[in-house]
């Protein structure tokens, strides 16, 4: 009974944290939200066009999937910047001396900060499922991979925010890391077009593994396994680092 009460109370608090980020997002200037949507469309349009010209329909699938994967993974970039902002504004101090515990806060923030990403990723996921006619099992596998990738992105963002105190430096470095993973490693293009020596390196990248895992998800679990193992390794490593580095109270 006591455990149930604790869980209920923490869920209420979690709801508060998510509400805080939700209102923070929806109150943004509509122009900012419009530009954000346009930016995402602007990224995909030339890639789809090039894909259509270069290799018929194989690349567009990858481009759509790449955008979905990056949208989910990118939630961490925003998280790193906003966690630091929370510290700088001292709003974190208010939350420390309140019923909001560190774990509830971390989880609530991760979900709250991902709301914009979720808003973009759900239509993309529906489009992907519809266009490529995924079965129930494949859909479950895709969602599982995206959830794992989301966790890796969030934990990476957390580590970045814990490692860099300067807000400006953090924004620059976070942007550089997420841009590298999104546009330099093979996400929108297949790793097979790279020389073999470089190909090995690209398989370290979480988004690359996310895309590869989803692409082979329709063929069953075995093909996905190496990619899922790499994503798990990322998640566990980052989680351990986060636990070692995080300091809720000074």
């Amino acid at each position: 009974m006591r455990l149930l009460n604790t869980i209920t109370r923490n869920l209420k608090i979690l709801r508060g944290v998510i509400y805080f980020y939700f209102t923070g997002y929806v109150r943004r200037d509509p122009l900012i939200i419009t530009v954000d949507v346009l930016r995402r469309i602007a990224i995909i349009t030339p890639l789809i066009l090039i894909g259509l010209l270069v290799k018929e329909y194989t690349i567009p699938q990858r481009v759509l999937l790449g955008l979905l994967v990056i949208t989910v993974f990118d939630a961490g970039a925003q998280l790193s910047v906003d966690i630091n902002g929370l510290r700088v504004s001292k709003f974190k101090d208010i939350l420390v001396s309140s019923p909001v515990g560190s774990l509830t806060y971390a989880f609530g923030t991760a979900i709250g900060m991902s709301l914009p990403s979720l808003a973009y990723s759900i239509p993309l996921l529906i489009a992907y499922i519809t266009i490529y006619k995924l079965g129930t099992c494949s859909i479950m596998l895709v969602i599982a991979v995206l959830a794992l990738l989301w966790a890796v992105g969030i934990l990476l963002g957390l580590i970045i925010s814990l490692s860099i105190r300067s807000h400006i430096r953090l924004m620059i470095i976070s942007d550089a890391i997420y841009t590298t993973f999104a546009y330099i490693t093979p996400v929108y293009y297949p790793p097979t077009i790279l020389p073999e020596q470089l190909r090995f390196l690209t398989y370290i990248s979480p988004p690359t593994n996310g895309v590869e895992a989803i692409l082979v998800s329709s063929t069953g679990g075995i093909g996905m396994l190496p990619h899922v193992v790499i994503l798990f390794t990322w998640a566990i490593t980052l989680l351990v680092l986060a636990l070692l580095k995080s300091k809720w109270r000074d």
Partner: protein
Amino acid sequence: MELGVEVYNLIKVYEGGVKALDNISLTHRGSSVLAVIGPNGAGKTTLMRILAGQLKPTGGVVRVLGFDVVKEFNKLRNYIAYLPQDIRPFFYTQTPLDYIVSYLLMRGYSFGDARRKAREVIDEIGISEYANTPVIRLSGGTVRRMYLAMILAAEDAYAYFLDEALVGLDPRARVIAWSLIRRVARSGKLVVMASHYMDDVSAVADRVIVLSKGRIVADGSVSELIDKVLKGVKRKLIVRGPIDQVKAIANTLSVGNAIARVVGDTVFIYASSEMLSDMIINHIHLKGYNVSIEVAPIGLEDVVIALGDTE
């Protein structure tokens, strides 16, 4: 739950060796307002942050509401609310209503209760016309009022820690804030506030502790402190002028029945009788100093000035 704070031999040394708190002990119980005052760097914020569980002490034991702030913080945090100094908005597009409702939800309120209470405190603090205005469009003082209202709205808390909470508030807003703070204390809660504004402290505090260089140098009610620190002082003179002349005046008064404290281009003179203060004024005129002299009422700020940087 014991309403109060207990501090035993508290020491806080920051990385780099700066000793912010030097073996302080303090016990305070009951629903009331406890104020912490003192010059810059006295250790006020460090003490507030330790009491609010933000900062771990280097040594000593601190108990708030009967809970050890280090070992039992997970229980304690359910019953406290803290407003840090220099707080800024996090989301600039959120409104005061968003902030307060979110905060109350985070404390476990239902949506209905959070909205009702948020509206209530927004009205009380006098910012209802800005309830739905993004904070980016609000003045610094209004944002500060929003945060104060937000913290005091937390009726589930038993101890409130307010660090320089009234900075930037206009005179009317400060009077409203005083009444809110007093009402919270009267409702069976403990309010601990650190402030540089002696008007605020005089208006709300039941007990005042004066910190200087990390130690408690005076402790008591406002009137007790004035009696203790400025014992026998009947008149206060404020003399302003060129620094060398002000210092010269202070030096001539260093012996005798007057206390002289130089702060910048001003010397505060506390005289034990009106006759003595008249003699001092005559002396200053006779010496031909080019200074202005003002006779002023004695207040709590004089306790801090008279104590100076006392060890």
